[in-house]
């Protein structure tokens, strides 16, 4: 399957509009109406193509279709029958404004990208293409029960309600059932009617019209979003693995729709859940998915007392109505257990409880199913264990008997044995059987007459009964205790995992860290291979792959096809890959890490023989939610920081410009003035004056050159540390280079270079450190009287080289010292044109030295003068001779 078009598509395009031409039976003229509408659209100048039209059309319809461009279709064979499927990629590539696709509810062939046609259509809509489609209303999910009751059989091809409800437009093509019947017969399509009587057609028409009316009513109310509740009602439906549960969910969904209220589906996981047979688990998954599709939020509670858990949940979540199936508990012989419904009524007297009968086509199945669920299986291992324990108990009993202990001791021993059995075995049947067996063995071995099942003493039957009840009770108590401990450990483990994830995520600072923490956590939880794609600027970065064990090669996951699926997930913001309905031939299930519409990455979880159950999915979703939240926070933080840095840079730049424009004016005035004087009346000046003017021009130009050098360094530093071109440099060379550039006034000063050690190497950006030295030495020359002594020295201390520039000038006043490294601070701290320092030099020195990881300080040099010292990292070299 070529998914090139998938990645080629852009995100953020406006959604296309869906128009559904609905009716209640085939032959009503939906396709014809659709084509007529398309013809109008085409005449209005819209680029219209036919994506797919069902094969058996009426002649008029076929004639009408001939005028349109038709997209090529793929012919696929499914179960021996050939079937046409739309070529989604070709359609996306062609990118018409409007596309016509028949039969919204169609099921796709296995090798298609999506399992259902409405998903194809959703993808087209997402790409900004308008779609016209047709639908028979009996394919809508929520009215399945009614359809079942009318037709006597359920419809296989179904679409979720939201597709129908959220369509931009629905046109119901209505026709009298009688006319429809006539028309079908005329067209020799009577076979379609074979299964449908006139009454059935009328009924279908009625529910179709009603469904459309419901949609219209919703539309008028303007309550399109299910989160805005008009009432304070909140409906709860209980999920189970029973086949009849489907009907209950649908009923509850209809009610929630009618009340326009909150809708929650609750699953209570009991200890029996683990032992539930796989088909039941699958059915539960189907039911959960159905509830989800119908707009319910799924919640899971853990506990053995289902009624109590439901009541507790209802109380906490403000549920007002509970929808239940009528559970028919087979009558017990000895004591009658109150049904779930009765218990619920007792526990939640303030709630409305709606009971839906679960009879009908599936009634028998439901009853059988329940039996299956509650007969615990016996394993050979458990039986062996039980036998062994009973044997040991009996042997101990013999010992007691020989020692002359009373029977009470032996009875206690057996009770202990039963308790041990119930703790060490999985099934509660074992302890039940063990109770009986222990009573019998006790009777057989230890009561008179021994080695027979008879008992002489008239008190024995009572003893046996008490013993049986006591061992049964202790046994069941112990097993309950055990399962509770196990359950609470499991719950604690879940809580701990989520808490840990949260904590680790809080510690992670960067996107990479968050992503890798999430990946590690998922690996720990699921023990499956994890592929995680972070995103930057709407693009997937290279994935991080964590392998659970060494069995799979990472190449499997880096396949471009897998990456395309991940890309598809980003574009469509939907899960895809193995175990889902989209692109299911992948080796991973891909989910997006997102908050709302914003996608931050994609996680792939390797598929295995065992699909993720609802609990695992819920953990996965919460971990991904945490991850998305962390990524969002981190992104916000980054943006905030970037904005702050930008603001600071702006501020700096503004200050710089202000100060430069002031400082530039003075030397430029001098240069241009002197030059213009020389140009216009050069002859008037004597040689000495001229020489003075030339010198001034030269000095000012040099000053400007120096300023430009400093500005260049500033701009390099502003762009960040990255711009340091660090290499190992010899300090002697660096200082010599700096001295070459010192102001020509240097001849009036005594510059002394003294180094303590030869061949000291430093890890520096030579250009910048030369600039630092020039600035400091120039400063010393500027602020000390001619004839002063300036000593430049350097020495190594630890990992740093300390370079000092000392002068014996007047020194720096105490109050100025803290500020001299500030930008735009000048010793005189007032605008003094004669000195022309824009106070950039030392600030720049500080930035450069700090960027190298060093420090710059100033101190007094006794008896007068100052010492500037800065440190830079020392370098090492290995000499090969």
């Amino acid at each position: 399957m070529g998914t090139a078009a998938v990645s080629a598509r852009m995100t953020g395009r406006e959604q296309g509009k869906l128009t559904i031409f609905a009716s209640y039976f085939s032959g009503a003229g939906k396709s014809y109406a659709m084509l007529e509408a398309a013809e109008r659209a085409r005449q209005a100048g819209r680029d219209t193509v036919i994506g797919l039209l069902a094969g058996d059309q009426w002649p008029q319809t076929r004639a009408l279709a001939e005028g349109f461009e038709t997209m090529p279709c793929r012919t696929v064979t499914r179960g021996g029958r050939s079937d046409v499927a739309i070529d989604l990629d070709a359609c996306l590539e062609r990118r018409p404004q409007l596309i016509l696709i028949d039969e919204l509810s169609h099921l796709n062939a296995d090798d298609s990208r999506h399992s259902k046609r409405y998903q194809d259509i959703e993808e087209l809509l997402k790409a900004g293409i308008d779609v016209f489609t047709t639908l028979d209303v009996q394919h809508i999910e929520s009215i399945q029960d009614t359809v079942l009751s009318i037709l006597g059989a359920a419809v296989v091809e179904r679409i979720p309600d939201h597709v129908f409800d959220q369509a931009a437009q629905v046109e119901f093509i209505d026709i009298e059932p009688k006319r429809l019947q006539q028309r079908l017969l005329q067209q020799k399509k009577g076979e379609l009617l074979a299964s449908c009587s006139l009454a059935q057609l009328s009924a279908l028409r009625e529910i179709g019209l009603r469904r459309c009316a419901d949609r219209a009513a919703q539309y008028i109310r303007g309550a399109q979003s299910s989160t805005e509740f008009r009432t304070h009602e909140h409906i709860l439906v209980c999920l189970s693995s029973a086949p009849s549960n489907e009907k209950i969910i649908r009923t509850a969904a209809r009610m929630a729709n009618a009340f326009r209220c909150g809708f929650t589906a609750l699953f209570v996981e009991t200890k029996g859940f683990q032992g539930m047979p796989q088909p039941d688990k699958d059915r539960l998954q189907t039911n959960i998915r159905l509830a989800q599709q119908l707009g319910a939020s799924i919640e899971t509670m853990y506990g053995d007392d289902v009624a109590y858990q439901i009541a507790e949940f209802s109380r906490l979540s403000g549920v007002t109505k509970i929808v239940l199936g009528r559970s028919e508990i087979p009558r017990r012989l000895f004591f009658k257990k109150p049904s779930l419904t009765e218990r619920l009524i007792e526990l939640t007297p303030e709630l409305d409880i709606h009971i839906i009968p679960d009879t009908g086509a599936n009634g028998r199945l439901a009853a059988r199913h329940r039996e299956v669920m509650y007969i615990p299986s016996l394993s050979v291992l458990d039986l062996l264990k039980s036998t062994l324990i009973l044997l040991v108990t009996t042997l101990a009993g013999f010992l007691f008997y020989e020692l002359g202990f009373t029977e009470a001791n032996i009875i206690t021993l057996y009770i202990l044995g039963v308790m041990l059995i119930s703790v060490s075995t999985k099934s509660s049947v074992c302890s039940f059987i063990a109770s009986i067996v222990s009573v019998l063995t006790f009777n057989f071995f230890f009561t008179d007459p021994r080695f027979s099942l008879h008992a002489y003493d008239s008190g024995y039957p009572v003893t046996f009964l008490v013993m049986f009840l006591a061992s049964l009770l202790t046994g069941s108590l112990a097993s309950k205790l055990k399962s509770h401990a196990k359950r609470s450990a499991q719950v604690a483990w879940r809580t701990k995992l989520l808490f840990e994830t949260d904590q680790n995520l809080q510690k992670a600072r960067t996107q990479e860290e968050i992503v890798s923490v999430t990946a590690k956590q998922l690996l720990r939880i699921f023990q499956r291979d994890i592929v995680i794609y972070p995103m930057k600027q709407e693009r997937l970065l290279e994935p991080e792959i964590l392998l659970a064990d060494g069995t799979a090669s990472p190449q499997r996951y880096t396949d471009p096809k897998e990456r395309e699926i991940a890309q598809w997930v980003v574009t469509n913001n939907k899960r895809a890959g193995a175990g889902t309905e989209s692109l299911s031939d992948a080796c991973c299930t891909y989910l997006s890490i997102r908050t709302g519409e914003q996608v931050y990455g994609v996680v792939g979880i390797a598929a295995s023989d065992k699909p993720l159950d609802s609990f695992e999915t819920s953990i996965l979703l919460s971990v991904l939610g945490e991850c998305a939240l962390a990524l969002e926070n981190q992104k916000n933080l980054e943006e905030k920081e970037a904005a702050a840095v930008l603001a600071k840079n702006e501020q700096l730049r503004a200050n710089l410009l202000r100060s430069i424009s002031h400082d530039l004016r003075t030397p430029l005035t001098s240069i241009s003035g002197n030059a213009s004087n020389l140009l216009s009346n050069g002859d008037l000046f004597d040689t000495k004056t001229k020489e003075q003017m030339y010198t001034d021009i030269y000095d000012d130009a040099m000053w400007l050159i120096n300023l430009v050098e400093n500005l260049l360094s500033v701009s390099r530093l502003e762009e960040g540390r990255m711009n340091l071109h660090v290499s190992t440099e010899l300090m002697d060379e660096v200082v010599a280079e700096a001295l070459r550039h010192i102001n020509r006034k240097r001849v009036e000063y005594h510059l002394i270079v003294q180094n303590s050690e030869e061949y000291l190497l430093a890890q520096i950006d030579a250009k910048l450190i030369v600039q630092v030295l020039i600035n400091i030495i120039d400063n010393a020359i500027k602020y000390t009287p001619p004839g002063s002594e300036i000593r430049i020295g350097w020495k190594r201390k630890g990992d740093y080289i300390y370079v000092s520039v000392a002068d014996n000038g007047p020194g720096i006043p105490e109050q100025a010292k803290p500020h001299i490294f500030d930008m735009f601070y000048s010793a005189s701290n007032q605008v003094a044109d004669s000195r022309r320092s824009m106070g950039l030099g030392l600030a720049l020195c500080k930035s450069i030295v700090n960027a190298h990881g060093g420090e710059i300080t100033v101190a007094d040099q006794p008896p007068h003068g100052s010492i500037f010292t800065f440190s830079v990292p020392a370098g090492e070299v290995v000499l090969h001779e």
Partner: protein
Amino acid sequence: MNKPLILVVEDDTPIRNLITTTLRAHDYRFLTAANGEAAVLEASSHNPEIILLDLGLPDMDGVEVIHKVRSWSNMPIIVISARSEDTDKIDALDAGADDYLTKPFSVEELLARLRVTQRRLAALQGGAVSAEVVFTNGKLKVDYAAGCAFLDGQELHLTPSEYKLLCLLCKNVGKVLTYTFITQQIWGRSWENDVASLRVFMATLRKKLEREPGSPQYIQTHIGVGYRMMKVE
């Protein structure tokens, strides 16, 4: 000394005027070209002895001009660069330029570079440097055949690396050699550690060679670029 013919390649008129004025004032003969194409044409038709080449030309990169000129001629090229990044200079030097000047440069500096190049030319014309058995530069004498060096008649005690370095510099006298070039020649590679080693060897060599290490006579340092052996009269 016979003043050589110099080709000035510079697109900025004031700078070109500055250079030509300076050259005229010092009795140099010169040609001018304002772009790369004209430069290559002038160089091939007039065969100048030295080229002063601005790197930022309107029609092509200066480095390209160097490549073109080097395809047929060995004439010394001094690069003038306004870009303060060292990499431009290094690229130009590695492409075959002999020396460089960074804008803003002083007139004295320009003249000094020209003199250096002239001396180099003179040495080249005196006979191929590399073919010589004995190299003499001021008081420095290197006897390639015997494998030893003398300063002021006294033998210098050099380590093998120092000697190799000295030979390399001598054979390229007057030319700025980049770090990469030197390390490639001596160690056959150019790693971070090699450049650092080079600095130390250069410092020790210099200590043995120079009377006053503070103001070197023979070996010039070009921070961030490389080293050069000066031609000493």
